[in-house]
């Protein structure tokens, strides 16, 4: 299967995105902001469809709107970012606009499916390089903010007293999440970013109580999920996103069972 160029590209793209998703997802789960991540993906859908409409690459539309959305959520305050109803409304409106933009665009169905459910087998070389570049930026930014981010997540009042700006950290982190979401949407689509961003991280947190090992495990699980998904799709000819989401569910379930047993 690795004889084919498109398969090699698919594995590379899935690997890059999984590393980013696993690492960023760990902090997203730790902060209890997974729904915000989900909403950013939907905002990204508007961006991607809008970009198609004006003739720009959908990836850049996705990146632009998710980052704007992330910064906006961070500025509006941590409390709003956790308010389910507000996020849910933004999420629905975004999908609605995306639908409208697609309506004006002729090659409706395939584009819509690719954006909503991902199309890792369709990643070309320029897109792969873009994914790599964005991934490096995303991980580097996460590395720079990770210490105050962790402090602000675990002990916000104390962090504030020590001089950490909670709002700045929140904005920067949501921008990092936005980049990760945009990457992730290329592989599994905007509707399914949960599977790479949340499932591996949540499974990792059930399996280990150490922070460093948790991040590493989240990355390993995400990569395993993504690569196994691509391989299974190749052998079965079923959609990659189906396999990736199924594996995500299985990993999470297995980790829950294992975690519950080890605690007994």
């Amino acid at each position, binding site marked *: 299967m690795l004889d084919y160029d498109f398969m090699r590209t698919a594995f590379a793209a899935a690997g890059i995105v999984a590393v980013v998703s696993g690492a960023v997802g760990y902090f997203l789960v730790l902060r209890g902001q997974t729904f915000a991540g989900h909403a950013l993906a939907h905002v990204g859908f508007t961006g991607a469809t809008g970009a198609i409409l004006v003739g720009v690459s959908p990836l850049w539309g996705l990146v632009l709107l998710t980052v704007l959305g992330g910064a906006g959520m961070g500025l509006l305050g941590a409390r709003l970012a956790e308010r389910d109803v507000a996020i849910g409304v933004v999420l629905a409106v975004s999908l609605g606009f995306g639908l409208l933009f697609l309506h004006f665009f002729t090659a409706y169905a395939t584009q819509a499916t690719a954006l909503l459910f991902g199309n890792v087998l369709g990643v070309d070389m320029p897109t792969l390089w873009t994914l790599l570049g964005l991934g490096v930026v995303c991980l580097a930014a996460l590395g720079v903010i990770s*210490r*105050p981010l962790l*402090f602000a*997540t675990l002990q916000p009042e104390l962090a504030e*007293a020590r*001089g*950490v700006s909670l709002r700045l950290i929140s904005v920067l982190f949501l921008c990092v999440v936005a980049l990760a979401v945009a990457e992730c949407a290329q592989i599994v689509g905007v509707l399914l970013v949960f599977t790479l961003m949340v499932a591996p991280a949540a499974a990792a947190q059930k399996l280990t109580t150490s*922070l460093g090992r948790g991040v590493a495990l989240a990355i390993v699980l995400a990569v395993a999920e993504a690569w196994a998904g691509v391989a299974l799709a190749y052998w079965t000819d079923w959609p990659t996103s189906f396999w990736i989401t199924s594996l995500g569910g299985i990993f999470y379930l297995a980790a829950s069972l294992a975690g519950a047993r080890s605690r007994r």
Partner: protein
Amino acid sequence: MTAIRLDGVTLALGGRIVLDTVDLRIGEREFVGVLGPNGAGKTTLMRAILGLLAPASGTISVLGAPAARGNPAIGYMPQSRAALAARLTGRDFVAAAVDGHRWGLPRLGAAGRAGVDRALGLVGATALAARPLGELSGGERQRLLLAQALLGSPRLLLLDEPLMSLDPHRQRDVVELVRQLQRELALTVLFSAHELNPLLPALDRVLYLGGGHAAIGTVAEIITGPVLSRLYGSDIEVIHLEGRIFVMSAGCEIERDEHRHDHA
């Protein structure tokens, strides 16, 4: 030298005056119990001392310098909330506060690790710290929070309601531990609480807040009908019984009722 000095300080939150023109001197190495009904401004006062809330008028100085954010001489234990990171070990939780305001990866150097070891040792939580937060009892978690507040060898400790939701036995342990640390390390301690009685064995003086006013002095000076009646703005009776003190309003014990209300 005075550890904390307030001159004509008015603290306001969202346009509401919480403390009105308060003057206050707290000496070094004093153990001061901060008491007062719910909403009296105990947390607000601590946040102002930390430099997180600028006074509407007046000046606050801490250990001879104006109150400012990021003062390393202050250790702070915020009023506890439900622990978010229940799956993380106590040690990782405590360590998140080491240099947590600096950018970069959350990696501890040798000095950081030694600091965490020392703080955990001081509160007798070295063995506890290996376990995930979610599996610890309330009293055990308070000890970890105390260890976190002791990082970096502060001279002033602000402890916000460390006795909240602990049973009387554990309350006594926490008070004893803080008293012992205060003497060993020559600390100034502000210890806020709902109830006076658990603090009685440790207190040097009490700071009683109520109705925007503050009164500071020994228990004999402050916990009296006339002083508390002024702070509460209603008729208060103080009853001494078998070494315990009961603050009564219209035949009901005030602190006890508030405690119940808090958990309802």
